[in-house]
C-alpha cells in the first residue's frame, strides 16, 4: 500500500516536471508572435528553448509510461475514453516537434512566417487541450462499473473544463514570459516585462474563478479542503510564490523569479493532487466506480521493479538535465548553425 502512495507522489512529481519544463517552452510558443516581431527576434526565441525542448517533452512521455506501467487501468480508461481529445493533443504535439526543427532550415520569409504561425497555434492548442483534459478529469468523468468512460469531445468541453484550459494557457504564457525575461535582453526583454503584469493578472483572475466554480459546483476534489484546514497551506504557498515572482522581477533577479514561478506550478499541482487523492479518475456516476491508486494499480512486483528502475535512472536524468541547462545558461546567442 505504501508503494502505491510512493508512486502517486512520484507521478505527481513527473507531471510537475513536465508542466514546469515543457510549460515554459509552450509559453514561449504562445508568446512567439506577440513579443518577437523580426526574424532575428524569433530565432532568438526558438534558440532559447532549442537545446532543451526535446528533453522537456520527454517528461510527458515518461508520465504516460508511468501511468501505463503503474496505474494501467487508469491509463487505459482515460486514453480510450478521451479518444478524440487525445488525438487532437497528438496533432499539436507532432506539429510543434517538427516546427522547431523545420522552421529555420529554409531562408524564405513565407516559409518562416508560416511555421511561426504553426508554432504559436500548436503551442496554444497544446496548453489549452491539456488544461481542458485536466479540468475534465478533476470535475469527474462518467466512469461506469466496467471501468469504461463513455463520453465524447463535446461533453468534455464544459464551461468548467474550458475555464481550466484558459487558466492553463495563462499560466504557461506567464511562465514562458519569465523564462524569456531571464534568457533575453534589450527590447525583447522589455516587451516581455511589459506583458508580464497582464499575464500574471489574467492568470490569478482565471485561477480564482476556477477555485470559486469548483467550490460552488461542489466538486469531489474540493471536499478535502472543506473538511480539513491543513491542505490550504499549498494554495496559500502558491499565492506567496506568485508574490515572489513579482518581487524578484522588479529587482532583476530573474533566475529566482523563474524558480518561484516553477515552485508555484508545483504547489498548485500538489494542491490539486491532494484534493484528488486517492482517486485518479473520479466517477460522477457512482463514487464506487472511481479508479484509485489502489484499484487501478499494477501488482506489487511491478511497483517494486519500476521503483528500482526509477532509483537507478532518475539520478542520471537529473544529472544531465541540470548539466545541459547549466551549459546553455545565460542569455541566448544566435550562431550561424542555430535554429
Amino acid at each position: 500500500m505504501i508503494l502505491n502512495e510512493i508512486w502517486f507522489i512520484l507521478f505527481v512529481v513527473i507531471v510537475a516536471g513536465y508542466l514546469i519544463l515543457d510549460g515554459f517552452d509552450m509559453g514561449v510558443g504562445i508568446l512567439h508572435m506577440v513579443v518577437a516581431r523580426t526574424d532575428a527576434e524569433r530565432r532568438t526565441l526558438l534558440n532559447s528553448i532549442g537545446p532543451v525542448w526535446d528533453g522537456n517533452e520527454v517528461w510527458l512521455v515518461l508520465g504516460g509510461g508511468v501511468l501505463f506501467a503503474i496505474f494501467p487501468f487508469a491509463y487505459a480508461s482515460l486514453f480510450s475514453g478521451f479518444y478524440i481529445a487525445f488525438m487532437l493533443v497528438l496533432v499539436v504535439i507532432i506539429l510543434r516537434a517538427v516546427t522547431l526543427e523545420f522552421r529555420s532550415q529554409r531562408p524564405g520569409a513565407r516559409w518562416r512566417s508560416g511555421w511561426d504561425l504553426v508554432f504559436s497555434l500548436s503551442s496554444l492548442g497544446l496548453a489549452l487541450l491539456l488544461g481542458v483534459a485536466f479540468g475534465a478529469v478533476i470535475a469527474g468523468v462518467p466512469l461506469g462499473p466496467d471501468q469504461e468512460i463513455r463520453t465524447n469531445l463535446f461533453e468534455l468541453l464544459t464551461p468548467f473544463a474550458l475555464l481550466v484550459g484558459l487558466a492553463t494557457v495563462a499560466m504557461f504564457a506567464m511562465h514562458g514570459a519569465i523564462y524569456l525575461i531571464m534568457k533575453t535582453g534589450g527590447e525583447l526583454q522589455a516587451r516581455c516585462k511589459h506583458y508580464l503584469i497582464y499575464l500574471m493578472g489574467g492568470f490569478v483572475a482565471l485561477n480564482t474563478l476556477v477555485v470559486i466554480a469548483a467550490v460552488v459546483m461542489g466538486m469531489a476534489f474540493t471536499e478535502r479542503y472543506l473538511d480539513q484546514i491543513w491542505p490550504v497551506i499549498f494554495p496559500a504557498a502558491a499565492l506567496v510564490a506568485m508574490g515572489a515572482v513579482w518581487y524578484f522581477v522588479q529587482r532583476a533577479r530573474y533566475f529566482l523569479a523563474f524558480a518561484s514561478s516553477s515552485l508555484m506550478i508545483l504547489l498548485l499541482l500538489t494542491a490539486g493532487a491532494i484534493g484528488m487523492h486517492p482517486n485518479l479518475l473520479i466517477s460522477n456516476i457512482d463514487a464506487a466506480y472511481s479508479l484509485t491508486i489502489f484499484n487501478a494499480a499494477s501488482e506489487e512486483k511491478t511497483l517494486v521493479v519500476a521503483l528500482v528502475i526509477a532509483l537507478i535512472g532518475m539520478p542520471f536524468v537529473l544529472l544531465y538535465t541540470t548539466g545541459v541547462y547549466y551549459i546553455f545558461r545565460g542569455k541566448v546567442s544566435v550562431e550561424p548553425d542555430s535554429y
Partner: protein
Amino acid sequence: MSLKPKHTNRGVGRLDAELLARLQFTLTISYHFIFPPLSMGLGLMLLFISGMYLRTKDPKWRRLSFFWVKIYGIVFAMGVATGVVMEFEFGMNWAEYSRFVGNIFGSLLAAEGVFAFFLEGAFLGLMLFGGNRLGPRMWFLASFMVALGAHFSALWIVMANSWMQTPAGFEIQEFPKPTRAVMTDFWEVVFTPSFIPRILHVFFASWTAGAAFLASVSAYYILRKKEFADLGKAALSIALPLFILFAVANAFIFGPESARSVAETQPSKLAAMEGIWETEDGAPMYLFGWVDEEAGTTTGLAVPNMLSFLAVGDLNGTVEGINSFETPPTAANLTFQSYHFMIALGMAMVPFALLAAVLWFWKRKLLEYRWALWILVSSVFVSIAIIIAGWWVTEFGRQPWIVYELMLTADAISPVVSAEEIIVSLGGFVLIYALLMVLFLYLLNAKIQHGPAPLEEIESKPVSELPDTLRGIFAARGEGKEKMTR
C-alpha cells in the same frame, strides 16, 4: 497457461472498429519505424565521421559533421513526433490490451523513457548545436550519448515487443477483474527467448540503413555535384565498407538466426512466413509464390527440403503446417509476401555489396561505373523498405494473436472507441503524415542539393578556441551573461 480466447459476438460494428484500429496502427508504426533505424544508423555514421576528424584533423571531416548533424536533426524530429503517437495509441485504441499487459509491457515503456529518451533529449541540443560551442572531442561525446540513447530506446522497445512474441516471466491473474498478466520474474520478462536474436537483427538492419543513407548521398554527390565530389568520396570511404559489412552480416548471420528463433518459439508464424499448410518432413522453401488462404494452398517456385534444413538443421526435419494449429495464423499471405520481399531484397544486396567492394578496393574503379553509383544512391530506400517489410513479418505473422497464444487482437481493442471515431483519427493521421512526408523530403532534398557549407560560413570561431574538456565547458559559458542578443 494460455487463456481461452473469448470469441464474443461483436457484430459488424465492432469488426469494423477492429479493422480500422489495426489499419491505423499499421500506418502509424510503419511510418514511425522509418526514422528510429536512421537515428541509430546515421548516429553511428556520425561517430565515424567525427572520429575521423579527431584522428586526422582534416577539415573536410568537420565540414561533413556540420552537414550530417543538420540532417540528423530533421530525421530525429520526425522520429520524436511520430513516436509519441505510439505511446498514446496503446491506451487510445488498445485499452483492453493495455489493461492486460500494463504490469509488464508498461514497465518496459516507462524504463525506455527513463533510460533512453532523457539521454537523447538532454544531449540532442549539445549535438545539434555543439559545432560552435564544444571542442571536437566534446562534440563527439555529445553525439555518442545521443546515438547511445537511440540504441537504448530500440533495446527497450524490441524487448517489449519480444514479450508480445514470446511471453515469459508472468502469470495470469483473473481476479479482481479485468484479467491481466502480472510479472513473476523481471529477468525472464527482459530476456524472453526471442529477444537477443531480434535485437541483433534490428541493430544490424538499422546500421545498414544508416550506412546506406551516407553512401546514397555521397554517391549522388560524386555523380551530380562536382563541388562536393571530394567530400562524397571521403564519406564513401567510410560508408561503403560498413554498408557491406552490415548487409552481409545480417543476410548470413543475424537474419537466419532470427528465422531459426521464430521456428523454435513461434511455429505458427514460421508456417505463415513460408506458406506451409500441412505438417511435413523435408519442407520446401519458396523463392516466391502466392498463398491462397481460402483454398489453403501455396503456389510458387520452391527449393525442396530447404526450409527443413534452415529451420530445423536437417533436410528431413519436421515443419508444422498452418492447418495443424488450433488457432491458425490469419494473415498468412501478407506475412509470406513481406517475408519474401525482405529476403529477396536483402539477398540481392549481397552480390551487389560484394561487387561494389571489389570495385572500390581495386583502385577505386567504382567511381567510374556510374550505374553502380546509381544503384548505391537507391540503397537507402531499399534498406528502409526491407526494414518495414521485416517489421510486417513479425507483426502480421503473429496474428490473430496480439500477445502470442495469450490474447487475441480482436479482444484487445478499446470497447468505447467507435468505428466513426477511428475514421476521424485515421483520416487525421493520413493527412498529417502525408503532409509531413512531403515537407520532410522537400527539406531533405533542399539540404542535400545545397550541400555541406564551407567551414568559413558556418564556424563562428576557430576550433582551437572552443572548450574541449568537461571542465572547460562548464567554465566557458560564463561570458555568455554579457552577450546581447542580435
